[in-house]
């Protein structure tokens, strides 16, 4: 059943509505609830297909679901509708205003209502899809402060990689941080690239979510085997930034092992064809982020490498 969980009047004859599709199982009610949220950034669309697939399969198999799955396909509906990363008109990143406040601005009120609605769930899965510049392998990102508690659940989601990253004050305004610090376990998924749906990744995550539901005792239907993720753990992440401006042309595949000094790609002057930078790997490891958008300035992120590993120690 679809319900509007947060709303506010827009100027002319319309209301912004944040909707939740609540799917209640017909199996034994075990009181459990999982929330799947996406569309916080309007240009990140991978989660749309995941939501659609989860909703379709569950609706066709209600007898195999115990408890409740809540699907929030668009926390920033105006952004998704207009391909705008932030909240249109406000030029505001919605993932920097949580937990919001009931007596704040419209965006802050909506954020507070979202937190209120999700709070108390057993698990919340917050699906992002990078941006238009970078392609990400399906991965879970966990703040080191919550790592111990979240890691067992993250492993159930069948992603390729779990990145336990350091804490940063600025990230305290995110949905995941706000929920995790108030007792609702929240996993952030990053995968694919902005403004696209990557069917392979979406299906991989969908299978992982059903695996999680099964492990929580909420799903008795079929599940597919899920991948055993690489966990960053003590392994460092190295950033490769462009040292020149121009167009970046990669010569490696995404999610491959690479040796220190190996060629990643070239930055070229588009007018003359001159090689501005021969980009090489600063370390051995595995590329889990790779630039998708070709134009680069000095500093543009080209790749992230998980340092070391069994074959690259």
């Amino acid at each position: 059943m679809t319900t509007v969980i947060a709303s506010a009047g827009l100027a002319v004859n319309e209301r912004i509505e944040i909707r939740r599709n609540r799917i209640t199982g017909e199996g034994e009610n075990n009181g459990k609830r999982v929330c799947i949220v996406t569309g916080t950034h309007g240009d990140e669309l991978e989660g749309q297909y995941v939501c659609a697939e989860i909703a379709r399969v569950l609706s066709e198999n209600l007898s195999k679901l115990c408890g409740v799955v809540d699907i929030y396909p668009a926390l920033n509906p105006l952004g998704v509708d207009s391909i705008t990363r932030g909240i249109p008109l406000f030029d505001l990143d919605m993932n920097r205003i949580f937990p919001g406040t009931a007596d704040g601005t419209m965006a802050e009120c909506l954020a507070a209502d979202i937190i209120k609605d999700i709070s108390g769930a057993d698990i919340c899965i917050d699906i992002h899809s990078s941006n238009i510049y970078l392609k990400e392998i399906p991965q879970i990102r966990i703040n080191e402060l919550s790592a111990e508690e979240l890691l067992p659940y993250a492993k159930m989601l069948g992603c390729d990689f779990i990145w336990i990253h350091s804490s940063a004050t600025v990230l305290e305004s995110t949905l995941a941080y706000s929920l995790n610090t108030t007792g609702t376990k929240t996993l952030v998924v990053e995968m694919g690239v902005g403004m696209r749906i990557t069917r392979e990744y979406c299906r991989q995550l969908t299978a992982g979510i059903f695996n999680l539901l099964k492990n929580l005792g909420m799903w008795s239907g079929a599940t597919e085997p899920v991948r055993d993720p690489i966990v960053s753990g003590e392994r460092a992440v190295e950033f490769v930034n462009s040292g020149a401006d121009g167009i970046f042309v990669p010569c490696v595949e995404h999610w491959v092992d690479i040796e220190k000094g190996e060629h990643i790609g070239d930055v070229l002057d588009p007018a003359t064809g001159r090689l501005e930078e021969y980009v090489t790997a600063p370390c051995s490891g595995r590329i889990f982020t790779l630039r998708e958008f070709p134009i680069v300035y000095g500093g543009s992120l080209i790749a992230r490498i998980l340092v070391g590993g069994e074959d690259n120690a």
Partner: protein
Amino acid sequence: MRKQVLYSIRSPYRQPMEVTGFKFGSGEKAICIVGAMRGNEIQQMYVCSQLVKRLKELEREGSICSGKEIMIVPCVNYYSMNIGKRFWTMDNTDINRMFPGYDLGETTQRIADGLFKEIQGYAYGVQMASFYQQGDFLPHVKLMETGFTDHKDMIDFGLPYAFVRTPRPYDTTTLNYNWQVWETKAFSVYTNATDHIDEASAKIAVDAVIRFMVKRGIITTKVTGGSVTEIVDERGLIQIHSPCAGICKSHVRPGDEIRKGDLLCEIIDPLEGEVISRIFAPVNGIVFFNYNRPLEFEKSVLYKIISI
């Protein structure tokens, strides 16, 4: 005056962007003033340009105190200004959310790092800042509370109001916050415009910064005393939200003194023209901020009132 390129970045398709500083006097790094970091901060750049003009005159008159160096950076992000974009041209990131910066990081982190290295070490830092909320407000000075800068220093700007803001997590990557972490006493000066030039409030800001420099012994020139400053905790402002969406017709302006029960505005149905709501003053006070767009959303902040 010495003109200096503080940081430069290349684009494959444009002339290099050269962030330029204007230095006056020499010796101890006394004060640095930074203008537009976003492409729509035209007023902030204009205020700085007027300060450069005034300081050239003062330098010719020998009015810059011996052993004091002043630097003004009118415009950091003119790449975005030249194409009518608010944030960074390519990835839409905000330079004022990238401090202290990182020289091996992403483009705007590198710009922030390159700029911050040049503007560190000054005793005082003033940022010409802009509001993200659309509206008119009284010119004022603001301090981000970090415990480093004395609230009373704001009195020397001679503006009627000075605000103290308790930083939120997203404030910790701003220039103002990081200046203070690196031991520069930092203030933000707000005038009543961003993407257009408001001469009157620009003059107020220029006079306020000149007054501050005189009172801090950086320059010598005749200035008016300015206003008696009331220091206000930003959390004490009374915010009035719109109960419904529509067309807002305001009856008051910033600076107006209001009595409890006064009519502040009417909200009109945008299709039928009927008044659907009237908003009255909840307290006696001064209008500090009013929303200035004709269309407003439910829960928009329409007014901020300083209670008296």
